[in-house]
């Protein structure tokens, strides 16, 4: 086998192992890195009887040390940068990071200023981006399903050449 084949086989094994670990249940820690709280309202409404995420096995926990996923909202303000790094280091591996909302994706309407870094991916490696301002609870559920490997993402880069 060539080295590319071996890498491909290892990649597939890693992918199926990730599905085995994360595909059953997720423990989420939500981190507010300086947001306007619009996204927090949507996260809180995920636990109500209408959009119930507990039926998928997803649980929102109170400490990063119990968590598998960090759900980060807000453009990371410079004041919250150290707290976010400490939370990331306190989360045990395997873990992944979900950036929720336009602010977490690239700074949104706040951008990159004297007060904010401009998105979570300037500080942490991000695995799933969920755009929206704020994203609907159904959009957050879709994003978490993409992260767990249960649904495929629908967005593809579109280029129209005329």
């Amino acid at each position, binding site marked *: 086998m060539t080295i590319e084949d071996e890498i491909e086989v290892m990649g597939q094994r890693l992918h199926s192992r990730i599905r085995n670990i994360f595909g059953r249940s997720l423990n989420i820690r939500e981190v507010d890195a300086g947001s306007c709280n619009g996204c927090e309202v949507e996260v809180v409404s995920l636990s109500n009887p209408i959009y119930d995420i507990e039926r998928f096995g997803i649980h929102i926990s109170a400490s990063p040390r119990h968590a598998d996923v960090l759900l980060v909202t807000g453009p990371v303000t410079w004041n919250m940068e150290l707290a976010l790094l400490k939370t990331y280091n306190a989360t045990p591996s395997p873990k992944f990071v979900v950036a929720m909302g336009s602010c977490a*994706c690239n700074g*949104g*309407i706040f951008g990159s200023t004297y007060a904010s870094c401009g998105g979570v991916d300037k500080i942490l490696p991000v695995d799933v981006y969920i755009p929206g301002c704020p994203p609907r609870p*159904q959009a957050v559920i879709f994003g978490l399903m993409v992260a767990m490997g249960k649904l495929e993402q629908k967005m593809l880069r579109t280029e*129209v050449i*005329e």
Partner: protein
Amino acid sequence: MFDILRMTIKSGVLTAKYPEKEDHVSEGFRGMPKFVPEKCTMCGDCVEICPSSVLLLEKTEYEMRLTISYCGCIFCGRCEEICTHQAIKLTREFEMASKTRHDLVSIIRRKI
């Protein structure tokens, strides 16, 4: 006690069946903005009015390129209001999660 039991049985199950069943949004919902490339004249009005600067108009010597990045879009609808040619419309799509930023981009290229 029996009143409460009767109310519980009468109201039934309220949980929304998403994602097994499609979720239909209401008429005025502001979802993903989409280009209509035939009507766009590359005038740059939408680029000036976007509050989060996600629209970008670039000009090289052989093409003009209009890019929208859905990462920072706040779905305000100002680009749709200001476009005089109706070349950008806010659709009702909200399932926009993606694993990379590379996929959250839509581009129109036009040769000059």
